[in-house]
Each structure stands twice: as structure tokens, then as C-alpha cells.
């Protein structure tokens, strides 16, 4: 057999409680492979608070601090400080929260920790709604989507919050987006994040077949189409928010292919999808313009 394409050590085991085809679970496995065993996790209320297992069991062979919804970042700050007080400067602390606990409920504590530039990796696994509590809209839910609080008669009209720009405004050393369809890219970004001291923010697109009304086998396919349809650009922001790199080396695919496979978009007409495609294209162009602009500023 050829050499393995990713580390073979499994820090996340079988028997967990995730749904079939869960993207958040794949993301966790990749992240732990990239970080290795010298890692401690902080998990607030989110799917992963359940996936992990029922007391007194856990599918993850690492210390995890389960905490309240709004406190992932501040607990990570505290955990890191506590470890350092005891002389452990090696252990990586990773806060692992869903989009609800990041974009909405945990935003103030994350902002505070990022402003202090406390030393931990914050990963938001973004499945674009409060999936664990029953698929309620979050500020990460994309425009056009059905959720239980945005029914098809009144689907979500507001665009997804631009969390990346919010984090960039904090001038932290490293920000990246990732997708479960590109595990090696994600693992590289996690490993890279771990080389910086300070707050690192990685947001990984993690499909939720249950909440998206999607056939579970299409989980990875959707994660790929989100990127190739430019809905979810893969990017890295380094130099404290001053350098932006966008991944462009892919064959673009139409947004309809992405949206039509998912039940949460089924109510949208072709015209509405075309409208969304136009917005996505405009956002993509703005992103590339920003990349060029940042690259053209002398001294950077």
C-alpha cells in the first residue's frame, strides 16, 4: 500500500452520536490528526457537546472541557493561562464551537479573547444553523435557506454574517476558512495556526445532512460544491489581518448544482437562485479586489 495520506493515529474513536454523514465529525477527526495528542479542547453547547458521548464516556481520547454556550473563547483563555501557570507551555488549547456559539452567542467572549490575543486556536465548524437544538436559524444561515424558525413561507432573507471580516478587524495573527471536502488543506491550516502565538480563528464549512435535508452520502460533495460555486471561498488572512490569500485553483461550478441538492433551498425559484448567484459572484469579485488591494500596499 502507498503511504497514508494523513496521520494514522486516531484521537477520535467510533461509537459517537453524530448523525450519518456528519461534517462536524469529519472536521474534528482531521483537526485532531493535525494537532496530535498534546491538545486540550473546550467545547461549548453545540452538536459536539452531544456527539462526544454520554457521561461518563467520550469518543475523544483527549481532555475536553464542556462549557456554557457563550463561553468557549473565554474558557480557552483561562485554560491556556492555567496551563502556563503550571509551567505547561506546550499543550495546544483548541476551542471548538458551532456557528451559533460563534457568530451569535459566543461572539462577545470570542471578541474579548481575540482583542487580548490570548493563545489558542478557535475553530468554528459552520453548519449554518443551530442544528443540535432543532435547526433554528443563526446569523450564519445563508440567505434563502429554510430552517425551523425561517419556514419556506418566510425563508431567511438576510445574508450570512461576515464573521471573517469581524475576526480580521481584531488583528489576530491567523484566520482561515476551510471545507471538509479538502481535508489536507484543513489539516495544513490547523498545523499552520499552531505555529503562531495568539488567537487563531479557523472556520470550517461542515455540512449537516439532517439540518440541510440532504442525503448523507452527499455531505462531502456539498462541501466541495460550496467552494467551487464560490459560496464559501477558501482563504487565509495572515500578518494580523493585513495579508489575504484566496484559493482560486478550481473548476467553477454553478450555484444551482449546490442549492438544488439540498432540501433547505428546495422552495427557491430559478430566478431566486440566479439572484443569489449574482450576489455570490459580486462578493467573490470584491474578495479578489481586496486581495489585490492588500497585496499592492507597499511595505507589506
Amino acid at each position, binding site marked *: 500500500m502507498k503511504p497514508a495520506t494523513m496521520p494514522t493515529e486516531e484521537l477520535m474513536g467510533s*461509537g459517537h452520536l453524530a448523525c450519518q454523514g456528519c*461534517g462536524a465529525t469529519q472536521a474534528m477527526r482531521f483537526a485532531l490528526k493535525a494537532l496530535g495528542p498534546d491538545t486540550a479542547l473546550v467545547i461549548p453547547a453545540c452538536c459536539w457537546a452531544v456527539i462526544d458521548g454520554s457521561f461518563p464516556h467520550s469518543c475523544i481520547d483527549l481532555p475536553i472541557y464542556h462549557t456554557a454556550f457563550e463561553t468557549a473563547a473565554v474558557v480557552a483563555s483561562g485554560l491556556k493561562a492555567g496551563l502556563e501557570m503550571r509551567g505547561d507551555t506546550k499543550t495546544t488549547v483548541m476551542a471548538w464551537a458551532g456557528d451559533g456559539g460563534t457568530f451569535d452567542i459566543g461572539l462577545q467572549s470570542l471578541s474579548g479573547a481575540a482583542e487580548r490575543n490570548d493563545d489558542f486556536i478557535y475553530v468554528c465548524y459552520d453548519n449554518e444553523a443551530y442544528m443540535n437544538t432543532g435547526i433554528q436559524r443563526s446569523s450564519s444561515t445563508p440567505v434563502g435557506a429554510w430552517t425551523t424558525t425561517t419556514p419556506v413561507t418566510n425563508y431567511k432573507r438576510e445574508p450570512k454574517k461576515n464573521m471573517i471580516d469581524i475576526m480580521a478587524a481584531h488583528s489576530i495573527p491567523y484566520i482561515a476558512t476551510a471545507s471538509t471536502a479538502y481535508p489536507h488543506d484543513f489539516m495544513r491550516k490547523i498545523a499552520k495556526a499552531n505555529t503562531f502565538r495568539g488567537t487563531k480563528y479557523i472556520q470550517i464549512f461542515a455540512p449537516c445532512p439532517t439540518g440541510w435535508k440532504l442525503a448523507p452520502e452527499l455531505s462531502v460533495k456539498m462541501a*466541495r460544491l460550496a467552494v467551487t460555486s464560490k459560496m464559501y471561498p477558501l482563504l487565509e488572512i495572515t500578518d494580523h489581518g493585513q495579508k489575504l490569500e484566496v484559493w482560486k485553483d478550481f473548476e467553477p461550478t454553478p450555484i444551482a448544482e449546490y442549492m438544488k441538492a439540498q432540501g433547505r433551498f428546495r422552495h427557491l425559484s430559478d430566478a431566486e437562485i440566479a439572484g443569489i448567484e449574482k450576489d455570490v459572484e459580486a462578493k467573490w469579485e470584491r474578495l479578489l479586489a481586496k486581495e489585490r488591494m492588500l497585496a499592492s500596499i507597499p511595505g507589506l
Partner: protein
Amino acid sequence: MIKKVEFKTYREMPIRPMTVGDMLWNLTGSWRNVRPYYDFKRSPCIVGCPTSENIQRYIQLVTENRYEEAWRTIIDNNPMPAVTGRVCFHPCMSNCTRGEYDEPININAIERSLGDMGLENPGWMAKAKATGDKKAAVVGGGPAGLSCAFYLARAGYPVTLFETDGALGGVLRWGIPEYRLPNGTLDKVVKAIIDSGPITVKTGVKVGRDIGLDKLEKEFDAVFLGIGLARSRSMDVDGEDGEGVEPGLSFLRKVNGGEKVDPGKKAIVIGGGNTAMDVARCALRSGSDVTVVYRRTVNEMPAIREEIEEAEKEGVKFEFLAAPKEILRKKGKLAGIVFQRMELGQPDESGRRKPVAVEGETIRMEADRIYSAIGEQADLEGISEAVETEWNLIKADEATGQTGRKKVFAGGDAVTGAASVVEAIAAGRKAAEKIIRIFTGRAESGEAEPATVGIDDINTDYFSKTRQTKMPRIPVGRAREGFGEIHTGYDAALLHREADRCFSCGVCNYCDNCWVFCPDVAIMRHENEYEINYDYCKGCLVCVQECPRNALSTREEGK
């Protein structure tokens, strides 16, 4: 820990709510209603190959640098990859799934690289000893005969190989020019086959004339006839007999034998098959201006596409829709030829549109030499009396080569009519296998054929479009000046570049995708395979969806 931790009293509980066990007690396999399983399928290239070479397998072995095993994989179905890698019409490539995506894998060139490696490493060829209590005679040292002899000898049965000519090779030697298949290469191929096992060669012996078929039947336990098509068919036109008109095969035989030939200033080659192309290009190399005349159009030409293109590039001219009508002579000397203008009518039994004469329209052409290459026929002297024939071809079973006589088998062009080298190799091997089954009394294994994969089964998201790696060659200008081999073969870098393009349709090549993407960590990565742990597989089928090559299938649970 497979056992669930259960606290009987609060005293057993830790002071803080903390984890004391893992989740392996939770057998999530019970959630599954559809089961994924590894199910390797057949790559279409293998189906396309007349001798069913395991092409997917040897290309995969090349990507893993396992050249010797790759070569052995070919040898299981074809003892002369160095020959087919040069002259095969490669129907495998027309079947290649990648051809429907960007460009087919250059299987022919990969096969040639491996074939050449086999010649450079004679040690790769296992030597068989005579262990069988039965012996066989093989008549004809061409591709069919060599193939049959090789597989019989490999199984330990002594073989006596009869050849009319002074050297083995048959059509490979006297029919295929050196620029496509150098004699030196052929010599090595023949030697490797003869040295591989208990094969006794008798050259200069024509079965049917020098020794009777009945005698062979008495002396041997099985006889295989691979006598090929050694005679040119005549054109049946006025003026054909006489100076200046020659069968293409006899011209090729002289050229390939190194004899001096003079194709004149202006030569006309009549026919549209590979012999016509070979004659035309040899005449061109001997300094003649050559025109190929064919009675249908370029689309119906039976010659290999690349050969036609090469001939055209080298400067061979073509005249289509013309059939020879009369050869003109002045005092016995060749003066020219008159062709009947044709047009395409209804399709005939070969599926090609049949040429019909356009009344009153003829063309006259000047010529110093006329070569007929309108087809070959079998030389059945002394054979047709012994075995049943039809249309001047030997009648034999397609799958086993069995003729009407119990001990006599036949295969190759003498059975099928003008076909290809690889089909002759296949016929020789299949006859050998049937003979071995008879010798050992073993029945045919009745294994079901696996399903064949098509482009719709491939997850093309994992492949970016790339161009086929062409085989390096000498420039046309230099090629047409001599008989040196045109294609020079891949180096290691080119070989890997092309082998890496293979989709590996239907067969796992350890890309890791299933293992990487399994959300339930239910795929185990072993030394040489993956295994699904059904205790935990929830049946999400991400592995099936993300397998780029359709090496997994699904089945509903409980059915």
C-alpha cells in the same frame, strides 16, 4: 473499552463530572439500513483487450514502481508485450473511460515500456520444466503459434513448434516493417519465449507438405494450427500477371529480409489495410513516389488510424473510391492502370458501406510498379484435406480453437481471416488453455464476470483534465528516410506521468478517500486493503460517493 461504564451508587462516581471511558460500547452499526462494501469491478480497457490483459492492474503496479510484477501481469495473457506495445491497434484505448473525460490513457505506450523492460531483464521470465506427461505440436511460428506454445510450455507440456520459414515470427517478421517493429526486438521476443520452457523448434518444415497433419496427430496429444495468411489475394484484373505487378506481401518479405528492392519512380499500392500502409511506406522509404488507391473512403479503411496518419505525414498520396479495372501493358511492359470510379452504397455484412461502380467513369494512372494489398489468404496446402474449412479459412470454435477433429485446434488469421496480432495471441492462449484443460481433465472455472465501470460511475471531481502523454518519436522528415524505428519509447518520467493519469476504474488503488472521509472512523486501513467495521458503520455511504473509481457498492440491510 467495549463495556459501558455504569455507576451503581453515587460513591462510584468521580468527584467532578469527568470522562472515564470511550464510546466503543455504542455499536452504531445498528443505525445502518444500507451497507457499503468493497466490490471491485472490471475496467473497460480489460474488456476491450482481445486477450484480456489486466491493464488496470499493471498500470497500478507501474505507479507503485513494481515493474516486474507489472510485466508478469501482462505475461499472464500475452507473452510478447514488446511486440503488441508497438504494433497493436489497441482497442483498449478506444474503451478507456478517460477517453470520455479528456484523452484515453496511452496504454499501448505503457505496455511497450514494460515489454522493453522485460527484454532488458531476461531473469523476469520464469523457466518452466517439462513436467507434463502429454506433448503438443504447434504449427506456425507467428503470434498465434508462439502464444499457444508459450502457454503450453509454461504449464509444463513439451511443445514442438513447426515453422515453414527459416526463422520464427511469422507475419511479425516478414509482414511488419522494421520502422514499426525492429527485427532485433523481435529476435529477443522470440528467444525469450522459446527459452521460457520445453519448446523444440523445427524451422524450414512446412506441415501439410513436408510432414502430414495425420502424422502429427499420431505423434502428439494435441496439434495447434496457427498458420496465418501467407498468400496475397489476386486482384482478378486483366494484365495482372507479368513484370511490374507484385503482391504486397512478397515485396514486404524482401524489404524485411534486407533484400534490395526497386519500387520504381512511381508506385501504386492497391488496398486499404495495414499491409497496404506497410507496403506504401516501405516503397516510399526506397525512393518511390507512392499513391495508395482504395475502393472505399478513408473512413472505411481497415488499417490502424495512426498508420494512415503516419503514411500521410510521410508523403504517401491517397486516391479513394477507385477499384482496379485493367492493368495496361505496352509490349508486355507495365504502362499504367485504369481504375473504376466507385461510390458508397448500402452497408454490407461488415457494417461498412459497400462500394458500387459509377457507370462509365474511370481514371487512368501512370505507374512503374503496382503492389496489390487487397487481402491475404491462408495457404491450406495439405491442411484443407485434413480439417474442415470454409471460405478458405479453417473452421474452429471461437472460444477454444477446437476444430472438428478432437486433437486439432486452430487460431489466428487462418481461422478469423485478416485480423490482428493481439487477436492471434488471444486465440493461441485460449487454445492452449483448452488443451491444458483436456490434458488435466479440469473443468473451466465458472466464475461470474464482474460488472464493467463506465464514465458515469467515476467521480470526476477528483481528476483535473490532462493531455495524453505522446510517445516520443523521431521527426517525420527523418523517419521517412530510413527504416529505423519511429517511436522511441517513454523514459521513466513519461511512463509515470501517463500511468498516474489512470482512473483505475472499478478497482481500489489505495487513494485513502474512503478512510479519510468516514465520519464514523469505521474504515480500517490495513497493509493491503481497507476493511469496513460494520459494528460502527452508520451507512452514510460517503465512502461510496467519494470513491473516485467506484470500487464500492451498496446493499440494503436485511435483503
